[in-house]
């Protein structure tokens, strides 16, 4: 396989946010020693200037640097460098996406490398689920950096998964155990959609249209775009069903299970409305559930219908996580689905009632084990692909989902973070995302250049694959498929 091209891809902002602020006191006489010693480009002196520029604090590793040879504060001859914790740090992020996670995701999107420094890039601070699991490996085991390079660049450790295990129909294999979640045209901007599609193509994995139609600009990527059929049937046509290798039936979404879809009027611009065949500026509600599906038999009828239009497509069924999700999964299997896509309660969304996100349906961690166990008991586990989404933020979340019993994961919010999302959560109304990601405002969406965005997501995926390979190596495995259900590799984080 030709390897994916990783290129450095810097932030699009003047100022980056970091954990520390570095400032120069008045005693600084601009000798420039710090510019020479800092390898992280915190200090700079523009050619022809006497003064050292305002420090670029975001690059600073803080006290972590102390042991190394570069610690500027002690080297400075007049003790003029001050490093403090940035009070702004606390304003970023939340329990699920901590400032550490957001910043390290940005770092990975910039460099394509596993984050260095002391920021926590594996778990959040939610105090439950993935965030309290740890792998039972001795992290102290010294692996030399050359060895690490060997592991992550060689093909000896496989991270690929197959999306069809039924023994009939096309065989589709993706080199990484994840693909992109449905995010509609309307909830996010076209440049963001194109960035995701481009990175999916580069990684030979998939992205999904979401329920907002299939913009013509996506046609060049059609081998890597999943057509979603959701309850509102917005923008679904025979052409878009024929065009795709995988068809995703969305029954419910984890962030708003049982409530259908929402696109508030502000974001339903004429372009979006045309794609969805609706009236501009009207709020759009997808119903819940499919008004033609009240049983597994009805569901089978649905699948037969799309199979008639596109016999070669794989079928994915996206459901949220009620307490009887195991039954739903088995029903979907018997109706002919190739992929069961579980969307947990803490998943992302363009707009959803806060009460639904927090309270309705269970977090994905519980649902994976529940469904995996039940499919095993029913003897059909080896014929179906179980994918998890809804709160999968990092490579370690993906690995933990697989340990709990999934085959792979589906990624949404992390893609957006790579594009520069700060999770301020104001994408639902008005002009949408002020940072140009989840918006349909023609002015705001110009902030994202699709090729820049694609490279950011490509880089993030590269770092994730490296982390998975390294993890598999440390666990003594050669293939991500061997990891499934190996709960013996997990322990509680507080356990010594």
């Amino acid at each position, binding site marked *: 396989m030709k390897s994916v091209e990783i290129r450095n891809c810097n932030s699009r902002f003047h100022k980056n946010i970091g954990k520390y602020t570095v400032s120069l006191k008045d005693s600084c006489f601009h000798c420039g020693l710090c510019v020479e010693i800092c390898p992280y480009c915190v200090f700079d002196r523009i050619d022809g200037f006497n003064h050292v520029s305002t420090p670029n604090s975001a690059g600073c590793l803080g006290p972590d640097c102390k042991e190394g040879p570069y610690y500027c504060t002690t080297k400075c001859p007049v003790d003029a460098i001050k490093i403090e914790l940035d009070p702004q740090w606390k304003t970023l992020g939340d329990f699920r996406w901590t400032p550490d996670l957001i910043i390290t995701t940005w770092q990975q999107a910039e460099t394509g490398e596993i984050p260095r420094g002391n920021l926590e890039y594996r778990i959040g601070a939610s105090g439950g689920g993935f965030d309290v699991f740890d792998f*039972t490996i001795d992290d102290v085991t010294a692996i030399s950096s050359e060895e690490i390079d060997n592991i992550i660049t060689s093909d000896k450790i496989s991270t690929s998964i197959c999306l069809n295990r039924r023994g009939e129909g096309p065989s589709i294999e993706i080199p990484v155990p994840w693909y992109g979640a449905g995010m509609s045209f309307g909830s996010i901007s076209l440049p963001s959609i194109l960035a995701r599609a481009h990175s999916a193509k580069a990684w030979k994995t998939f992205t999904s249209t979401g329920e907002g139609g299939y913009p013509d600009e996506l046609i060049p990527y059609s081998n890597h775009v999943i057509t979603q059929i959701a309850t509102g049937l917005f923008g679904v046509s025979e052409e878009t069903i024929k065009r795709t290798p995988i068809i995703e039936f969305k029954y419910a979404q984890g962030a708003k299970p049982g409530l259908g879809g929402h696109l508030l009027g502000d974001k339903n611009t004429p372009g979006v409305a045309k794609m969805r065949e609706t009236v501009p500026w009207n709020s759009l509600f997808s119903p819940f559930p499919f008004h033609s599906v009240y049983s597994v038999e009805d569901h089978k009828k649905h699948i037969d219908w799309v199979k008639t239009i596109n016999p070669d497509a794989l079928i994915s069924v996206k459901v949220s996580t009620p307490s009887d999700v195991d039954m739903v999964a088995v029903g979907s299997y018997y109706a002919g689905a190739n992929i069961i896509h579980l969307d947990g309660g803490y998943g992302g969304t363009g*707009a959803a009632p*806060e009460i639904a996100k927090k309270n309705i349906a269970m977090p994905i961690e519980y649902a994976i084990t529940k469904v995996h166990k039940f499919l095993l008991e029913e003897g059909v586990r080896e014929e179906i692909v179980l994918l998890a989404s809804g709160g999968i933020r990092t490579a370690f979340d993906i690995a933990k989902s697989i340990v709990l019993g999934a085959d792979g994961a589906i990624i949404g919010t992390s893609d957006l973070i790579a594009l520069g999302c700060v999770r301020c959560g104001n994408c639902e109304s008005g002009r949408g995302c002020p940072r140009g990601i989840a918006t349909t405002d023609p002015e*705001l969406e110009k902030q994202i250049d699709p090729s820049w965005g694609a490279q950011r997501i490509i880089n993030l995926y590269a770092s994730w694959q490296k982390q998975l390979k390294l993890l598999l190596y440390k666990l003594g495995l050669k293939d991500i498929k061997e990891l499934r259900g190996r709960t013996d590799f997990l322990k509680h984080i507080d356990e010594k």
Partner: protein
Amino acid sequence: MYKRYHIETSPVELSTTKIGKFEIIRNDSCLNCGRCMTHCIYDVHKRDSDDPRIMSDPVNHLCKNCFSCIQNCPYQALEMIKNKEFEKLGNTYWTPQIIHTIWNEAEEGKIPIFGAGYRGPFRGSGFDDIWTDMSEIVRPTRDGIHGREYIATSVDLGRKLPWISDFAKLDLTNSYEIQIPMLLDTSPLGLNSRGIILPIIKAAHKLGTLAFLDIENYFDELKPYLKSIALRCSLDKITHLDRAPWREANFIEIALPQKYSISELERVLKKLKSENQTALISLGLTNPSLSAGIFKQFKEARADILNFYADNHGQSFEGNIFICESTRKLQLDLVKERMRDEVTILGKGGIAAAEHVPKIIICGADAAVLDLSLLVAAGCRVCKVCKIDDCPVELEKLDPEIAEQRIINMICAWRDQLLEILSAMGIRDVRRLRGEKGRAIFHEEIERESFEFIFKENGPVK
């Protein structure tokens, strides 16, 4: 003509609730270039109206934490910090976030809707240890064109007889239907000022529900609203039972002190019933652990309703049990004794957010009693010590109409959120939610079910 129940909302702003979560600081490096203004889509940054050469101070409460101005500033002149005023709100239970959410609901009367996923902790204690269920395949609850099918939120207060043995001996007491499974309470903090009592009672009247009022706070202007008032008095203080308003009240609550004599209770209830045959009688209880024997005594004394008081953090006054747990246990006990329908269960204390209403109902209550949340809707900041003369928002002087509309707005938002929860489950009547433990996911149970095998050899789940 048949009319659907509907709550009339209208936006009411309150200047004292304009406390943003964040504060933007403009430092000396600012060149007044105005780039922050072009990047901010929320009008936080504006030029000074008197001197357009300079930027005026950021309007912090409009800031939505998007970092656009900060990251696009060419001179690193802007910085965001947490707003201390915001952090100071409330306490560990009534968190700044909870207060802020109620303020927004009271202002807009709408369900809080935001983009991006959930941002809170995985779980918490009390109400936050419960998830509500949904159903993948149900009758349609939301239609793309016609909106939402009707979901009933009315509940009945009063006992339901298991069967009728003798029509001649039928109780005159009627059951009383309230339109929402929420009752209001006028004395949450001992803040018994008329300035806040009247708006709460008027709101209850408009909403088609009841408001609890201590008898000592009753005044004559309240007479037109007597049908919407639940008059309350402690058992050891009750007097003048033969006078108005006891004789005219629809709904009477006797608060039981920690120690009381059952014969005294029987005597008072008998007297009440003889003076006012149609009133529903409720008992206010501080101890949530009832034996079947005590319950039978209450039943024989002809109490229709039991209202369990907890403190503002949802902890019972006796026994320190959280309101969810005690209600769950009570529900199970009553079902076991086959007496559940012979009494209405209410829960009061610690109901601080919209999701607490369906959750307490799932645990077994018929309806929730809102208290402190009503004050918060009116602008209260839940200070450590509440002094009516020294109130930072001058609650006493608040325009009663503003307070009333804000309370109505909040309750409308809460009812709409209850509808969201019910529709996700495919339930069309909130009465059916009562005690439906199977339609909820309890943390401890699901954790054991899902993860026990994981930790079998490595120790127990924490």
